[in-house]
């Protein structure tokens, strides 16, 4: 090994990391805390983009507000850091004006499912051709650790100091119920599987959703007895069980027991743009006339 790369002499010419060409290196070190899982997910996303072979000048990353939302500011691709909760409406507009491009939304659980929840359900319902990466750190990290729609029952946050009385969303079940056609969940330590899944999601036509359970040692771990980043990363990974292809409503995250991860949904369905083109080319046919003689089943059953 040469002394240059191993020791202090490297400081004058810092070595070039293989992902530096996709990073705005002038902004490093980034704002994420020691051991925050967002950096791992970000690296995985960049690897998947590189492996996809997509033309880099036609890939865009859109984020909302939050620690996770900062990804848009660190990636050296077309990117947009929208207002809180509005990543999906912005991404929708971007995709529809430039359908040949690949639009990735990377944001936090609060951004996508609290303030942005309504946008999420409708983007999934329309099967818009977008890839959504949600870093679920079980709270609002950026603002100091408030309760989020992901906060597990009983977990402590600044706004639930005695423990959250709410049941959290199962984001994967929600996404699938709304109409997402690709749905997966991993922890931040399932790096190879995550990168592979992001690659599949990028190649998928339609709304793909990937949730990553990631440590936020500073805001969440500290209040929930797992202050050490390594312990938190390991806690999620060790409790996880992989169950591919199961119905997402069975993919429960039980923090006292097992955390189900895997690829749950991968189906082909027309995207919103397919439907829009079909309507505009007059291929839908006439809406049927309502004929008076059609029996109404309920009434028939009632004997009326």
């Amino acid at each position, binding site marked *: 090994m040469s002394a240059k790369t191993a020791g202090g002499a*490297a*400081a004058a010419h810092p070595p070039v*990391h293989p992902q530096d060409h996709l990073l705005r290196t002038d902004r490093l070190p980034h704002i994420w805390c020691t051991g925050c*899982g967002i950096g*791992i997910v970000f690296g*995985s996303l960049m690897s998947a983009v590189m492996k996809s072979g997509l033309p880099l000048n036609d890939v865009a990353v859109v984020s909302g507000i939050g620690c996770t939302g900062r990804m848009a500011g660190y990636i050296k691709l077309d990117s947009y850091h929208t207002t809180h909760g509005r990543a999906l409406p912005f991404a929708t507009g971007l995709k529809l004006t430039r359908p040949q491009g690949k639009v990735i939304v990377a944001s936090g659980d609060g951004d996508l499912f609290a303030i942005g929840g309504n946008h999420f359900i409708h983007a999934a319902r329309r099967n818009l051709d977008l890839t959504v990466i949600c870093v679920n750190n079980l709270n609002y990290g950026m603002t100091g650790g408030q309760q989020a729609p992901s906060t597990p029952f009983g977990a402590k946050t600044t706004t639930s100091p005695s423990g959250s009385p709410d049941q959290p969303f199962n984001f994967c079940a929600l996404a699938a119920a709304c109409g997402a056609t690709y749905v997966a969940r991993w922890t931040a330590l399932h790096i190879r599987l995550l990168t592979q899944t992001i690659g599949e999601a990028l190649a998928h036509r339609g709304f793909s959703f990937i949730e990553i359970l990631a440590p936020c040692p500073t805001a969440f771990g500290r209040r929930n007895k797992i202050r050490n980043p390594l312990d938190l*990363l390991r806690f999620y990974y060790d409790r996880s069980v992989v169950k591919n292809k199961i119905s997402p409503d069975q993919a429960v995250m039980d923090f006292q027991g097992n955390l189900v991860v895997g690829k749950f949904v991968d189906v082909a369905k027309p995207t919103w743009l397919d439907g829009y083109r079909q309507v505009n080319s007059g291929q839908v046919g006439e809406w049927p006339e309502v004929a008076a003689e059609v029996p109404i089943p309920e009434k028939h059953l009632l004997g009326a």
Partner: protein
Amino acid sequence: MKFWRKPLDLAAVRPARGRVVIIEERCKGCSFCIEYCSREVLALSESFNRKGYHFPKAIKPELCVNCHFCEAVCPEFAIFSVEEEAQA
């Protein structure tokens, strides 16, 4: 390398060799790379960087098999591996 049963093609297969590179000034000392290097190449250094974080150092650099896992698990883009000439 220790084997549970000696592979038949042991003579023909050359294990990959890597060289691990650390960008000390980017490190925030989470120790993920140290913990998850399956070859135990890394350890926490006693020295620290400008921000006051202890960064990893390669204590057994010759054991690196260029698996890139430290590179993938590092949240700071502070460590990576490059291929070295395979062992004889």
